[in-house]
């Protein structure tokens, strides 16, 4: 090493070495003491570049698919599982590049590439990696965070073709023992705080939000949201608020968290049978194989773990404190720890946990943290720019899918035309005479709300056709005059599945519809009762990710889980839209 470099190295570790006691006087300036600070002053990533002028701009909005939950080698656990794809590599993968996955010793190299690139992505490495070094040991923490921001800048397509949007982000990994209340922190700007908040310093969501209010929302040109993810693993903590919670706490939460991740590779979080519902379509890729009717007090059966329960609880809380803290739009994500955003195709799935689930046998373990390929976040936005995508996330004009690229539009209104499904201006009418998914319907005297929903199947790729649609359901939740919460699931288009799954070939079904549409008016609407409505679009059933893993192993060598009924061997892939809320 050069002498000059060595001198600087010693200077740099001055902040980690202890010499003598003499605490300095309290700092006068908020920036913490100027020249005396021993950490090297690093230039910030400057937000100077203008937003792109996108050629493809549609006022009636287009759909974009992305992944807002992505770990790379900058996450401690991913690194430990052998992942070496860094944030640059993950963005390159999202844009259609090749990724090298961690490979067990002696096996052939594992490569992966998306058949269809994503439109947007955020790398969300654990901030605890970036923030865990000893206090004062500043260099790697700042460097890693700066690298994350620069990688996002490198990936962002600012040309007029607007092919790809990156969002700067990180994961805040707070927990109380085995109960997780993790959040993805997603910035809508390239101006972001100098450091990410770490759960080692701030282990409650309230502390995280307080940190973000000061370091981002209180600064010029910085905007941020936090997205709770896999609430199914939160032991009831994720959506937990008392009847007498202060209004301010509910408002903070509503402002910071417009969205929830309803599905990812650690399973679905929509709802569980026995936990407030008997909907047969709950327990989707159920990580814990829940039997909540038999174990209603189980940690994983609590209402605070599930999105639908939270939506219902939010309406009840709003009656008492005047604010709905759980007004949640819906997305899904992968939570890949391989640096492979959007790798949700089950036919080519290679795992999400590096070496830990690197072959089919490992993916069939019941105790594996992961149990599926995860999902995608979809937004309806005018164009593929950071500004437009982030605005769509904030107004909840989003839906989550279990990995498929089916498309769904959903509008609610008092005067929606009954013939919308026969019109080529479905979306235009929807915006003109109603509100899209994520929106609010204000009361109208004598009115009865109508809902229009149109879904198209995933068109697939030439090598891998999409699966036809089975039915569209609308899920309504409401609070009655006595404050009791109710729900109802209504099929508004299509019918129960017709296709039979061939477990040996797993060929996609020929039955089903490529397109389903309905205009539905709520026959049980009562104008005094607050309600939400969201759509769930179901595909015809196909082989599950487990069946596909079993098929990759010789019949006589398959693990017991291939045959003992503990894992679901078929799956109905789906999309969940953000709700539309009605307020009396």
């Amino acid at each position, binding site marked *: 090493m050069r002498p000059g470099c060595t001198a600087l190295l010693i200077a740099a570790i001055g902040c980690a070495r202890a010499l003598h006691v003499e605490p300095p006087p*309290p700092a006068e300036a908020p920036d913490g003491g100027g020249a005396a600070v021993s950490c090297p002053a690093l230039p910030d990533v400057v937000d100077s570049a203008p937003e792109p002028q996108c050629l493809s701009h549609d006022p009636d909005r287009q759909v974009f698919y992305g992944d807002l939950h992505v770990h790379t080698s900058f996450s401690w656990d991913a690194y430990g599982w052998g992942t070496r794809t860094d944030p640059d590599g993950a963005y390159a993968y999202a844009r259609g590049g090749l990724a090298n996955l961690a490979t067990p010793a002696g096996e052939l190299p594992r490569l992966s590439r998306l058949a269809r690139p994503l439109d947007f992505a955020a790398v969300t490495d654990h901030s605890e990696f970036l923030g865990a070094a000893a206090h004062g040991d500043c260099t790697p923490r700042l460097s890693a965070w700066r690298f994350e921001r620069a990688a996002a800048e490198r990936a962002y*397509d600012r040309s007029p073709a607007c092919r790809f949007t990156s969002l700067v982000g990180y994961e805040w990994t707070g*927990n109380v023992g085995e109960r997780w209340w993790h959040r993805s922190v997603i910035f809508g700007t390239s101006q972001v705080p100098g450091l990410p908040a770490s759960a080692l310093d701030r282990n409650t969501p309230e502390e995280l939000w307080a940190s973000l209010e000061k370091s981002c929302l209180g600064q010029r040109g910085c905007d941020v949201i936090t997205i709770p993810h896999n609430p199914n693993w939160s032991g009831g903590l994720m959506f937990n608020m008392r009847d007498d919670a202060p209004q301010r706490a509910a408002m903070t939460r509503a402002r910071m968290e417009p969205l929830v991740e309803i599905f990812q590779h650690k399973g679905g979080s929509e709802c569980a049978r026995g936990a407030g519902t008997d909907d047969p379509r709950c327990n989707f890729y159920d990580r814990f194989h829940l039997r909540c009717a038999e174990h209603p007090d189980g940690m994983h059966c609590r209402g605070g773990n599930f999105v639908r329960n939270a939506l219902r609880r939010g309406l009840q809380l709003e009656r008492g404190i005047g604010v709905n803290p759980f007004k949640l739009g819906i997305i899904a994500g992968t939570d890949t720890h391989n640096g492979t955003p959007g790798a949700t195709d089950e036919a080519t799935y290679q795992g999400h946990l590096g070496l830990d689930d690197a072959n089919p046998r490992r993916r069939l373990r019941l105790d594996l943290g992961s149990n599926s390929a995860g999902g995608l976040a979809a937004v309806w936005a005018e164009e593929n720019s950071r500004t437009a995508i982030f605005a769509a996330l904030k107004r909840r004009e989003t839906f989550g899918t279990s990995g498929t690229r089916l498309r769904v539009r959903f509008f609610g209104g008092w005067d929606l035309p009954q013939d919308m499904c026969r019109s080529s201006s479905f979306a235009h009418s929807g915006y003109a005479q109603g509100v899209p998914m994520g929106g609010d319907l204000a009361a109208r005297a004598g009115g009865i709300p109508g809902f229009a929903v149109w879904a198209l199947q995933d068109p697939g790729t030439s090598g891998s056709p999409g699966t036809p649609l089975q039915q569209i359901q609308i899920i309504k939740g409401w609070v009655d005059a006595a404050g009791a919460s109710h729900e109802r699931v209504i099929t508004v288009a299509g019918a129960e599945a017709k296709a039979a799954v061939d477990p040996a070939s797993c060929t996609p079904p020929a039955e089903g519809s490529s397109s389903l549409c309905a205009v539905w008016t709520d026959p049980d609407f009562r104008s005094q009762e607050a309600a939400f409505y969201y759509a769930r679009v179901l595909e015809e059933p196909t082989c599950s990710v487990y069946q596909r893993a079993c098929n990759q192993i010789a019949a006589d060598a398959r693990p017991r889980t291939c045959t003992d009924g503990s894992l679901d061997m078929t799956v109905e892939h789906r999309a969940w839209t953000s709700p539309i809320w009605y307020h009396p």
Partner: protein
Amino acid sequence: MMRRLLREPALHFAVAGAALFALHALVRKPASSRIVVDRAVVLGLREQHARLLGAAPSPAQERELVERWIDEEVLAREAAALGLDRGDPIVRGRLAQKMRFLQADLAPPAEPADAELRAFLAAHPRREPALLTVGHVYVSRGRDPAPLLAALRRGQEVRGDAFLVGPLLEDRTEEQLGALFGGEAARAIVAVPEGTWSAVASPYGTHLVQVRRRIPGHDARLEEVREQVREALLAARREEADRALVQRLRGKYRIEIDAPAAPLEAQR
């Protein structure tokens, strides 16, 4: 792995300790049983707090930060003394990464001039895709599209069936058309001659399409991609500096490889 990691914050401290241990070793200072909170530590804590929260800590917060720093320091030193850092691939990888970061911070690459950006772009051209503007009439399955196509070719207005994708698609790439209609349909649309109405099949039915404008693909001009080129060039320079650092440091070691037979060979 994640669960274990979260349950054992000691691991975090071990890594921090290993870092301290290694840095101490570098400057050949023996570990001491004295823990001293000096000016630099406190200023560092203040700065971290300010970076995170946008304001300096209150005296009470600062006392708490210092107490926590001492706790970590104790645990880190004990962990290092027990050798918890050795043989741990995470610690090893982390230390290697810190050396790389340190180099990147101490010798940041120079801000590239315009001429350098141009040269870099010329050496690593970026392709801007062709953009198509397409007129679109949807015909559902079960309806014969031929009369509609013939009418369109005669220049008549026709009424197609309702569909979620509208009658005009402006400035779309092949990839974006593929997201709407599937990859095969997109390939077919790109291939139809400009101006002529043509029929293309998709999973949804038949799409009568007319390519009205085609902006050809071209190599990007610097003005279109300046930020990405700048970031890519800086990244390339950092990588080069990183390789040089490793090469230089390798010179300090005599490297012997005593490997068993290559694993893939042995399996054959």
